[in-house]
């Protein structure tokens, strides 16, 4: 360990804890993940490009990214409303609702998958009322959207909620005293404060949805070119021992996830920088 890279301290255990951290994390995460890129590098650029641009692969990206994006925006709207209601209003059962918002985090994805499928199937509790309206959810791309919306639900609530809690009420009072009505105060005073957190939450919900597998495969129907998500396509290729195919698609997904993760970091940095300025 190069000690000049570390500021002196009287506390012990730096070498031991950082050493263990780096060793464990490299062994479990970094080395296995880099294997994905090593494996892909055995392909030529042209081979790689042909694998990741087949019509079946492109259809799966469109569904995966499209449904993730729509789901994230639905959660952006309803997540903000839920966060607002939880912070600003008092109503019976508020603390139970607050705790339950995290259910999609805690519930195993396979359980979520079979449950949503049975509810939204044509004879299910909700599906049977949608069927006469001509809306089929289970075993269609719409089912993918339902599953991805479900698993993204907590993110916006949990990023917007603390910002709303911290919001200085006096600023709102000042706006009202200066003649703004509630709607003007909301748009000109509150919304600008919420933007970074809201965008962070939407990006997190999107990132989570893109990689999601368990809750989707039961409800999707999994028809190639129609209702097949990219993680399932990777799984299918693996089951056919097509390791080059699975790995190439894996690299596409991984790079996309890292770009989104980087954006989330920038958004968080932006929102904390705004807080510092105040």
């Amino acid at each position, binding site marked *: 360990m190069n000690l000049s890279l570390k500021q002196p301290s*009287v506390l012990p255990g730096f070498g031991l804890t950082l050493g263990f951290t780096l060793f464990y994390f490299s062994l479990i995460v970094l080395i*296995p993940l880099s294997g994905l890129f090593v*494996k892909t590098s055995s392909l030529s650029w042209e081979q790689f490009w042909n694998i990741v641009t087949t019509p079946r692969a492109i259809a799966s990206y469109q569904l995966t990214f499209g449904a993730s994006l729509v789901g994230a925006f639905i959660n952006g709207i309803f997540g903000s409303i839920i966060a607002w209601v939880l912070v600003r209003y008092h109503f019976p059962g508020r603390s139970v609702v607050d705790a339950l918002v995290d259910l999609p985090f805690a*519930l195993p994805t396979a*359980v979520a998958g079979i449950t949503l499928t049975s509810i939204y199937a044509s004879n299910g509790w909700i599906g049977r009322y949608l069927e006469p309206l001509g809306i089929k959810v289970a075993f269609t791309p719409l089912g993918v959207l339902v599953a991805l919306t479900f698993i993204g639900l907590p993110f916006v609530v949990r990023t917007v909620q603390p910002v709303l809690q911290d919001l200085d009420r006096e600023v709102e*009072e000042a706006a009202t005293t200066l003649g703004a009505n509630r709607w003007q105060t909301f748009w000109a005073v509150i919304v600008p404060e919420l933007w970074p957190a809201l965008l962070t939450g939407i990006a997190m919900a999107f990132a989570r949805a893109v990689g999601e597998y368990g809750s989707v495969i039961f409800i999707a129907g999994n028809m190639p070119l129609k209702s097949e998500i990219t*993680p399932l396509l990777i799984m299918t290729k693996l089951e056919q021992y097509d390791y080059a195919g699975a790995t190439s698609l894996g690299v596409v997904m991984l790079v996309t*996830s890292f770009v989104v993760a980087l954006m989330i970091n920038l958004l968080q940095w932006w929102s904390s920088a705004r807080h510092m300025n105040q």
Partner: protein
Amino acid sequence: MNPVTIATNTDLQWKDSLTTESSLVRWVLIGTAFLYLTLFLFVPLVAIFTEALKHGLSSYVDSFLNDDALAAIRLTLLVAAVAVPLNALFGVAAAWAIAKFEFVGKQALITLIDMPLAVSPVISGLIYVLLFGAQSWLGPWLAEHDIKIIFALPGIVLATIFVTVPFVARELIPLMQSQGREEEEAAITLGASGWQTFTRVTLPNIKWSLLYGVILCNARAMGEFGAVSVVSGHIRGLTNTMPLHVEILYNEYNAVAAFGVASLLTLLAIVTLSAKALIERKTVSLNRQNIHV
């Protein structure tokens, strides 16, 4: 975010007429929130138990008191018993290094630790197949020495560890950073050993967050589906964890049994959420005491 501000802000009542909406707007918003949560949370939650109990209590109990289900439960407990303590140890070590010292690359390390959360579960399994599968360059050597990793317990444990690596660290790092290092420095200066300082000064300060991190890590470890599905091979009674068992039962149109096993996992999720709420209340009231002193 600083927990102290939560404590004081929840005490505020938003009743001031200057800064609240008409009761019509208020009830429309509450109604919208409830409708959305009903569709996506309440109905699914009720459906799991209704489906599981469809054919009465005895067939519900039968759904998890049979050899295959019990083997799945045992395997799930075993995997969590290995993965969770290792990740808890990692979380504590990482948080100690990051929160108590200043070193180059610290921010990068914090970002890196969150990385497994951004990786699709299918990829988390795939990387271990590439590393240890029969087609990998380690494959022939492993076969020669009769070491099974993929389609066996070690693969399931590895994939589970990968997916749950960040959970304890994520809880501890921000907390220990906000607590600073003065108390530990005082203990060391007064002659305590490093281990004494950790167990008597640091541990009491972080125990609730550590517990919550462990509970969260455990819930995810027991419920992981995608990553485990890739490396398991789905061998009944042997490499089937509870979520994989749910999948098999459901695909065999045995919905009652599938929801029966699923209901156990749901109870685990509910216990996890309750523990979170309790621990949050506990830390908020602790902070409140600190304010009054």
